[in-house]
């Protein structure tokens, strides 16, 4: 028990850190903030790669056969590889590192008032393995045969044998990269859970923890509980690819559906693993900018736990037409429809938080509000896909694709932007430019809807996924459908161009932004007690003590409309 870190275990180290070299300070750092930035910037770099892939294959779909600027002619195998790796990168190397790892690393110790993660070296190892996994994935694009092209779900038999997927090196490397990435996040998840449970500031009870910390912790638990089957499946698939076993080869007694179970038993909780941190980020931002206490803190928390439990009982809704037992479809349809209840509770609680608030439309708040709106569209369209009857028609069409982009885009992209615009002052000590932020916001949101609304119509009209060139299918090559594809592609290009103001704003604000001070948004949680940017050890003025819940805005006993968690008061408002 002696090695369990307490809130101020490494206070004596503070004087040694000033002579650190660039390498020890930024590359081999064990500081949770630096590791968070490493994850953040690696994630952003991977997002640029994933966005570039999307641009290339959308151009191919809109203007089939023509040479794509900055790429060239897209061959069918290159198209498959681009689509596969776009999905893989965006989920495993963008949403996961940015939302869980970067935000978890940066926020958890600051928000619970401790000086670092409880296992700083495990934390560093986690990032290093993650970086290795990213390098393996990127390297797989350049091996003979090219990158893996069997979709991010890697269904066998296509993924199992090189004679089917024609990527003898790309497919195993893809699997190894995914497995390494999972190891990295398991190490990170252990850290998040242990830190939040053991290293909270004095006085911080379970229900005084900011909701985003809860969300990241619950997401880490979901990840840890769900990932076992995928790792087992990945090893089996790797053996099928390289050693000649036949776990998934039907011709020799194996069963390809087994992989689908192994994959989706992980894959569906994974959706909630990335959703929950984004929901938490949005809750923090909405409370601060509505100047309101979070509506139903406990309700949201319990709904989250319920969501987590239910998420383990829905996985086969991805397999309704894969030849699973039709009786199972009843069961999984029911659980899938049930899982919309906790999500709806959370969304309603967020909307109720806004009611009667004094709302400030900062860029972070705009992104948070758009998260609710866009995610709602994604969630509601999921109802049709979760019902086994309608899914038989809609399965593997662009309707599915539009649905999950309406969930993942708010999660991974809007959630990330919300977090960056909100915590940028804390991360780098300076404010971002709000005008350019709003230009970025409107350009991103309008263009995003321009991409994916047409895809709903295309999907409902029967446009199948994973087709390289729709001109080969007369039913799908009509003028109207091609016009919608062109519209979606142009919207994508516009959206990507609107990221340039963000990048410039981000970089320029590092040097030129207005000094932020400790608490620019007048928020309550403990990270705003630390200086901006927080030094090594986070709280140079002594570790904070917590006297109240995280969302005491507009409290009647107080003149200021906010009441930081660490300020002593004559009474302790009940937030239980």
């Amino acid at each position, binding site marked *: *028990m002696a090695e369990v870190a307490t809130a101020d275990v490494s206070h004596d180290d503070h004087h040694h850190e000033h002579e650190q070299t660039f390498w020890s300070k930024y590359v081999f750092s064990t500081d949770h903030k630096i590791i968070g930035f490493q994850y953040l910037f690696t994630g952003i770099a991977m997002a640029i790669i994933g966005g570039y892939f999307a641009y290339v294959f959308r151009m191919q779909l809109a203007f089939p056969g023509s040479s794509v600027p900055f790429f060239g002619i897209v061959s069918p195998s290159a198209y498959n590889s681009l689509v596969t790796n776009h999905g893989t990168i965006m989920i495993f190397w963008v949403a996961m590192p940015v939302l869980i790892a970067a935000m978890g690393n940066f926020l958890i110790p600051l928000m619970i008032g401790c000086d670092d993660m409880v296992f700083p070296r495990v934390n560093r190892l986690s990032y290093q393995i993650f970086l290795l996994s990213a390098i393996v994935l990127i390297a797989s694009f350049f091996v003979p045969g090219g990158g893996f092209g069997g979709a991010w779900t890697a269904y066998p038999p296509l993924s199992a044998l090189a004679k089917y997927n024609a990527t003898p090196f790309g497919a195993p490397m893809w699997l190894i990269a995914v497995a390494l990435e999972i190891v990295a996040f398991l190490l990170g998840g252990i850290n998040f859970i242990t830190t939040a*449970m053991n290293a909270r500031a004095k006085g911080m009870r379970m229900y005084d923890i900011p909701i985003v910390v809860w969300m990241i912790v619950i997401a880490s*638990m979901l990840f*840890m*509980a*769900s990932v*076992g*089957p995928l790792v087992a499946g990945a090893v089996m698939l790797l053996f099928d690819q390289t*050693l*000649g*076993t*036949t776990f998934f*080869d039907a*011709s*020799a*007694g194996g*069963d390809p*559906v*087994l992989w689908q*179970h192994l994959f989706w*038993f992980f894959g569906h909780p994974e959706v909630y693993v990335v959703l929950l941190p984004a929901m938490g980020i949005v809750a923090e931002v909405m409370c601060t900018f509505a100047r309101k206490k979070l509506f139903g803190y406990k309700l949201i928390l319990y709904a989250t736990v319920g969501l987590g439990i239910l998420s*383990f*009982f829905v*996985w*086969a809704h991805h397999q309704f037409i894969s*030849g*699973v*037992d039709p*009786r*199972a479809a009843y069961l999984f349809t029911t659980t899938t429809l049930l899982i919309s209840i906790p999500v709806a509770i959370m969304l309603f609680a967020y909307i109720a938080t806004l009611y009667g608030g004094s709302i400030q439309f900062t860029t972070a708040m705009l992104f948070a509000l758009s998260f609710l709106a866009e995610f709602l569209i994604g969630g509601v369209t999921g109802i049709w896909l979760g019902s086994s009857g309608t899914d038989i028609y809609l399965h593997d069409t662009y309707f599915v694709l539009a649905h999950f982009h309406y969930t993942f885009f708010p999660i991974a992209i809007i959630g990330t932007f919300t977090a960056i615009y909100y915590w940028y002052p804390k991360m780098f000590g300076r404010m971002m430019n709000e005008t350019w932020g709003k230009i970025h916001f409107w350009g991103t949101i309008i263009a995003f809807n321009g991409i994916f609304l047409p895809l709903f119509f295309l999907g409902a009209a029967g446009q199948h996924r994973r087709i390289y060139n729709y001109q080969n299918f007369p039913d799908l090559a009509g003028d109207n459908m091609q016009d919608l594809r062109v519209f979606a592609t142009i919207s994508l290009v516009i959206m990507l161009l609107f990221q340039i103001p963000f990048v410039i704003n981000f970089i320029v604000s590092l040097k030129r932004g207005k000094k932020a001070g400790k608490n620019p948004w007048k928020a309550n949680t403990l990270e705003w007690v630390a200086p901006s940017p927080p030094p090594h050890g986070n709280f140079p003025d002594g570790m904070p003590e917590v006297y109240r819940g995280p969302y005491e805005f507009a409290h009647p006993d107080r003149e200021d409309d906010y009441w930081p968690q660490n300020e002593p008061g004559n009474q302790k408002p009940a937030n239980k």
Partner: protein
Amino acid sequence: MAGNSLKKYNRIYVALLILFIVSVLGPEIADIFGMEGLSRMALILPTAFGIAIVKAYMVAAHFMHLKTEKIYAPYILLVSLALMVVFFFGVKIDIMASEGHNWEKPYKEPTESSASHHGDHSESHDDDH
């Protein structure tokens, strides 16, 4: 403190060894006496599987420190065990069933003539060990 815990671990180690011997002896005795049917099950189930559960509990509780951890640590472990059961029964209906309404999944024993080279490969592996 350290000596004490070492003693404790040694005791647990010896206990595990004794349990291991019992779990090996149980099925052996069933074979030696040629027990069949219910009495065979009555002997083998508790000695092999029952003792395996006891041993797993002792390892988890002491060597994995679950006894001294906060209460949520064993809960997480129990949850993952429960999820394993969920996964097993969710998958069982698809993977392990060999027939249903209007369909069947015949298992073909790999033979010399029909087996692919994969089958041969795994066969020879089994022989080696």
